[in-house]
């Protein structure tokens, strides 16, 4: 996949205090750094997403450090408590320093 494209799924509305499930998926090669180029025999340099963070109105509610065994197109689902209306920001940090981000709005009644 040439272009990295994140997808997130957050419920649009939730009751206060409700536990909500958040799903994320990002297209990424996740090159582990352990493989060799079949033709030249040279190692393919590692290029993975090494950090994933989710903030809820600026507060980190979930984060994860990823390592080379994480699969291609990583999928991550987790739960959090709906506290207030606002924005969820998702950030993925690549080995080469680039970041991919996506945000979603939630209304808490």
């Amino acid at each position, binding site marked *: *996949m*040439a272009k990295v*494209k994140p*997808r997130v*799924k957050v419920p649009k509305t939730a009751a206060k205090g409700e536990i909500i499930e958040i*799903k994320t*998926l990002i*297209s990424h090669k996740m090159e582990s750094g352990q493989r060799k180029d079949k033709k030249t025999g040279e190692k393919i340099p590692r290029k993975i997403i090494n950090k994933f963070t989710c903030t809820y109105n600026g507060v980190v509610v979930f984060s994860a450090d990823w390592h080379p065994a994480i*699969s*291609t*197109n990583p*999928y991550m*689902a987790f739960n959090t408590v709906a506290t207030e209306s606002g924005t969820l920001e998702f950030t993925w940090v690549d080995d080469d320093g680039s970041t991919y981000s996506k945000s979603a709005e939630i209304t808490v009644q």
Partner: protein
Amino acid sequence: MRWRPIAVVLAFGLFIGAGSAAKAQGDAKLATYSAGDARSGYTYATPATQEMQDDDFANPSFLWIDYGATLWQDVNGEAGKACSSCHDAAEDTMKGVGARYPVYSAELGKPISLEQRINKCRVENMQAEPWKWESRELLSATAYVRHQSRGMPVQVQIDGPMTPFYEAGKAFYFQRRGLLDMACSNCHVDNAGNMIRANLLTQGQSNGFPLYRLKWNGIGSIHRRFRGCNKQVRAAPYGYGSDEYVNLELFVNSRGNDLLVETPAVRN
């Protein structure tokens, strides 16, 4: 020996009773994903894989489907057209199309697969470069088009002008080949449901293609799968889009006539 049948019936009854709750759920799934004797590969997949396919969000193929939707609107080629310029919204115009392919092309005098039809359209109507087989573009566009038929029964024509090509595909399917001297049918007819070392053999139904294969870490066409199968029996694979494979695709799809299109499916 009069007690014997009773004992058998009793034992059988107990067996059914014990597993009935889990079995009922499995049966409902089996019914949805089968048609007559034909059983979709979904029914052979592990629960974890089925779960991935059930949830459109967890199903990574949707990265390709989304890209396909973008391509549908993309103006490309000398004619300054996009797919949508002629075909409007794919949700309406492409509904049911993927379920019919491969179809007979009177112009070429042979069946033509969905991939080939898309490229034909690109070359003739859009005056654009054809996409390479298995390129992200062609896979995305094919998956996007066939996805519009999801839930509709596969219905390929095998009579009329298609007869000789259907017969050729059928002959290919039952022809032993390669160093292992195996035909498609040796696994997918004779041994469907049995293990081949660590893998469960399926009927080799094609209703979910193009599909996301965990082994591939991506989505692939039925011809890629054919090539993989041919290589596994140590036979020289045919080319992508070759007449042999289009005929075979026709036969394999016809085996799954009435199965529901699952594109994009997830398999191991």
